[in-house]
């Protein structure tokens, strides 16, 4: 039995620069088991970079990334693969495999990690696609589906591996309001059912309201606030406020 308060993702003084531009200056956050942390920040502030550091796609220049209690950059190859198996990542672009059909996209990681019979495989793929409302697209190629559909298929492909950590890079961007809401509820549901630890990067305030246990606001390479949604929303800081009034001003 794991303790309720166990920290699953811990970032300590994480810094990352690209060609002398310091994108992340000093990132610190602890994310507990079963918790959903939402990261807010203007475009280009490095939100995607943070997610990529957590999963080890990018190596920070300084600082530590501890996941499941271990520094991920100290793992050997097998341990690293094990860690990756337990981690799901939804790319901002969906990152579907263009040469494979939607079904093959979902099967691709599944057949490599689990010993499933043909019927089990079929069932899991269908169930996962059904969850995102796209069972009808199962035999399409990625080039034949829309941008929003790609993202939802990417989500299905991420969820199908039943990871313990989920990192979502703008899961609802580019979707209509109704679908966005469905996806946000799906993220919440998955988190509740499987006690998943997640990080959600989003600009969608409804998604924040549905999914967030905690909110971290990123500004010039640092988290200026990390706190409960109700506290962050009450902030008087104009930068932080700007995220929350944006929903009303849009229409």
């Amino acid at each position, binding site marked *: 039995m794991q303790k309720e308060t166990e920290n699953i993702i811990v970032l300590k003084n994480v810094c990352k620069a690209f060609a002398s531009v310091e994108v992340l200056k000093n990132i610190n956050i602890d994310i507990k088991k079963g918790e959903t942390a939402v990261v807010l920040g203007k475009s280009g502030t490095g939100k995607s970079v943070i997610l990529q550091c957590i999963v080890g*796609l990018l190596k920070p220049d300084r600082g530590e990334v501890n996941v499941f209690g271990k520094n991920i950059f100290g793992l050997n190859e097998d341990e690293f693969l094990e860690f990756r198996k337990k981690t799901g990542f939804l790319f901002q672009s969906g990152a579907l495999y263009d040469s494979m059909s939607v079904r093959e996209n979902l099967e691709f990681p599944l057949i490599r990690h689990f010993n499933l019979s043909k019927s089990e495989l079929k069932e899991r793929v269908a169930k996962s696609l059904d969850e995102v409302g796209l069972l009808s697209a199962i035999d399409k190629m990625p080039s034949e589906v829309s941008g929003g559909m790609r993202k939802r298929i*990417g989500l299905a492909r991420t969820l199908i591996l039943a990871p313990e950590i989920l990192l979502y890079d703008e899961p609802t961007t580019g979707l209509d309001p109704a679908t966005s809401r469905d996806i946000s509820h799906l993220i919440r549901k998955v988190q509740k059912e499987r006690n998943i630890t997640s990080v959600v990067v989003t600009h969608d305030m409804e998604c924040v309201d549905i999914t967030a246990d905690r909110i971290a606001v990123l500004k010039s390479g640092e988290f200026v606030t990390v706190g409960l949604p109700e506290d962050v929303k009450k902030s008087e800081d104009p930068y932080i406020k700007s995220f929350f009034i944006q929903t009303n001003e849009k229409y």
Partner: protein
Amino acid sequence: MNSFNSAKSALYKKIETAGDLMAFSFRYFREAFKPPFEIKEIFKQFYILILKSLPLVSITGLILGLTLALQLKPTLGKFGAESLIPSLLSVSIFREIGPIIISLICAGKMGSAIGAELGSMKVTEQIAAMEVSAVRPFRYLVVSRVTAAIIGVPLLIIYADSLSILGGFIALKLQSDISIPLYISLAFDVLGFGDIVPSLLKTFAFGFTIGIVGSYKGYNCSRGTESVGMAANSAVVLSSLLIILLDMIAVQISSLF
């Protein structure tokens, strides 16, 4: 002074690329023999690579033999040495012209295809997506393509060499009356171990070069869609250059025996 510095940094960059490419090649050998193997993907890539190059390789092979025979005819005819044409043809085709020309064609066809495909997968984060789902993209994408090229290029070359010999026969047949058995015995009797084995060995190296350079350029493609075109282009340039250099080295080595 400034141009000197920029030349210096360009040189450093070249050296760095060479080092990276070496490391990438070693990684291929490290990963190629470790299970789990992506057998199905190797066959698929083999099939795709062969199929893509087959029309061009066929036409080139045939025409190569045909034109070569036609070119040789007047010169050798002057000395009454027309009967040497088949053997001259087969030796030059098998030893040198077949391997180098077909490899350069494959570098153009396969190298650019591999570079562009892996490059676009890199840019659209598909390679990252494989990595994150713990699938070992290097094995799935690179090992399969390089292995397919190592096997595919020599086969294409042998196939094209045979077509060239056929082309030579057609050329001769059009102008004189030579029988197939005679032509074949003239063409193949001269071929010895030293004509076949070294040139076959170097074609494996050419295949490897095409596969590894294309994969390297695609796999290390930088962000932005324009870099996909650059990856494809530089894959062709670099692999062609390396093939010519390797050929020169291979000729030096095989002349020792």
